[in-house]
């Protein structure tokens, strides 16, 4: 038995033996998890580790998960896309049944999930972690066909490779244009990390090229750290256009790679559209998404406030102050798994505390971070006052290089915990 399994089993035995022993027959519980990303794979593995008698089925159509964190480094040729890829062997080894198909319908009253292969799964508790879908209707001119001309690369994989190839094929001096949607969206600092790492790559390979960052917002995550870093590392190369200066993109034309804003239009040599987003489509079908397109949940077990028995995790959920990040998804999944085991045993889940940490790279050896600590307060997850915040503005003692190393270590650790 591996060290990890010993750890989890001991943790499980230590923490849950009394409540499980007091609830005879709780082991017959069935949990279905829809979506095998950082939230879903973590939830499935943790559920089995905490309560081996549970039947846990992970519904995920893709045999390979391509992770978004660090995919901006693939654009800058600092990593290969294969280093972003994770399979579900470790999830299966944990005793989880992996159904390699998609969920087509959820019946919250009958507590069943219908699968694309025709099977139907009954559940006592359902975990939905469908991630994001793009709200194609929200940006005129942009659809799935347009994404082949102006990649979003906001779900990592073929789109990441497409955008990297376009950058490499671009003439030196060509203008790279990125558009950033309004909040909320997956990975708040992600667009700015991407702009940084594209600028890093341009400075080496396309030194006459510049990057125009069209933004539907007037402020963004780790803004001063990014802007200080851009001035230090890439003077004059990145132009950020905020909402108030006409940064909001109102339509795009994939035939001419043109971005139209409220103030004018910009023709790109390479165009990257980060589209407006909402929870994965199955969330709408299940009735757990509200009119915003995202899923409201209570802050202890992350159970939907719209459909009892369904827990929503990760990017799809409205998690109060917690951002849509891989770290947050993994943290929520561990809390939710323990809460579900408690609920199935007839116990009350404890009030959780959660941490988020997000690293961003501005160059291969230049990292910054934002952190937060969250707890339930007045019905939602709320920042613990006085905690959290961003890296120090003054980089002393090699802090930026240290945080770049921490970022890489974090990625190896969290993917090992998530996928086994």
């Amino acid at each position: 038995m591996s060290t990890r399994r010993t750890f989890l089993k001991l943790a499980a035995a230590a923490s849950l033996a009394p409540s499980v022993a007091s609830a005879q027959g709780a082991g017959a519980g069935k949990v279905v998890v829809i979506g095998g990303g950082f939230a879903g794979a973590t939830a499935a593995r943790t559920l089995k580790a905490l309560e081996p008698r549970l039947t846990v089925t992970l519904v995920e159509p893709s045999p390979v998960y391509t992770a978004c964190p660090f995919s901006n480094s693939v654009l800058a040729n600092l990593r290969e896309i294969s280093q972003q890829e994770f399979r579900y062997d470790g999830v299966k080894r944990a005793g989880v049944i992996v159904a390699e198909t998609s969920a087509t319908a959820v019946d919250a009253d009958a507590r069943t999930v219908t699968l694309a292969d025709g099977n139907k799964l009954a559940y006592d508790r359902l975990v939905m972690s469908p991630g994001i879908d793009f709200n194609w209707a929200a940006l005129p001119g942009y659809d799935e066909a347009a994404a082949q001309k102006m990649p979003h690369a906001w779900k990592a994989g073929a789109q990441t490779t497409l955008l990297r190839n376009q950058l490499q094929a671009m003439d030196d001096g060509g203008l790279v244009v990125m558009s950033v949607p309004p909040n909320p969206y997956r990975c708040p600092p992600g667009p700015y990390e991407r702009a940084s790492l594209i600028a890093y790559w341009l400075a080496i390979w396309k030194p006459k090229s510049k990057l125009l960052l069209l933004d539907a917002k007037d402020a963004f995550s780790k803004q001063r750290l990014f802007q200080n870093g851009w001035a230090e590392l890439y003077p004059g190369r990145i132009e950020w256009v905020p909402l108030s200066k006409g940064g909001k993109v109102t339509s795009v034309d994939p035939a001419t790679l043109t971005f139209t804003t409220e103030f004018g239009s910009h023709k790109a040599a390479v165009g990257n559209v980060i589209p407006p987003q909402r929870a994965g489509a199955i969330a709408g079908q299940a009735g757990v998404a509200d009119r915003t397109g995202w899923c409201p949940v209570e802050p202890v077990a992350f159970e939907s406030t719209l459909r009892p028995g369904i827990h929503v995790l990760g990017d799809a959920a409205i998690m109060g102050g917690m951002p849509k990040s891989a770290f947050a998804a993994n943290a929520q999944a561990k809390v939710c798994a323990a809460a579900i085991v408690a609920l199935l045993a007839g116990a009350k889940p404890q009030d959780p505390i959660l941490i988020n940490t997000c690293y961003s790279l501005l160059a291969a050896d230049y990292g910054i971070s934002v952190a937060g600590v969250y707890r339930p307060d007045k019905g939602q997850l709320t920042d613990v006052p006085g905690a959290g915040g961003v890296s120090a503005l003054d980089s002393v003692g090699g802090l930026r290089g240290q945080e770049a190393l921490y970022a890489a270590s974090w990625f190896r650790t969290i993917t090992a915990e998530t996928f086994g």
Partner: protein
Amino acid sequence: MGRVLLPVLASALLLAGPTQAADAPPGASSCTGCHATTRIADSVIPRIAGRKAADIVTFMREYKSGAWPSSVMGRIAKGFDDQQTDAIAAWFAAQPE
């Protein structure tokens, strides 16, 4: 292993109270996103499972006050009071290294 673990487990039980045994206290499960529970992950971030509870508490207290420099841990430590930190430290100390 038993000789090393038993005293630590006993102190964990004392801290957390007998009814909850060594139940993972609030906040503990988030730590393992960075502090690996397995040796598989190649990491410059130290593993904390099986470390002395008193040492973990000392690091958290000094990071929180700023007496010891840190990148991210000072910002995180400020989210936990002494009792919460003690409980998390005792729980990790009771896990196999």
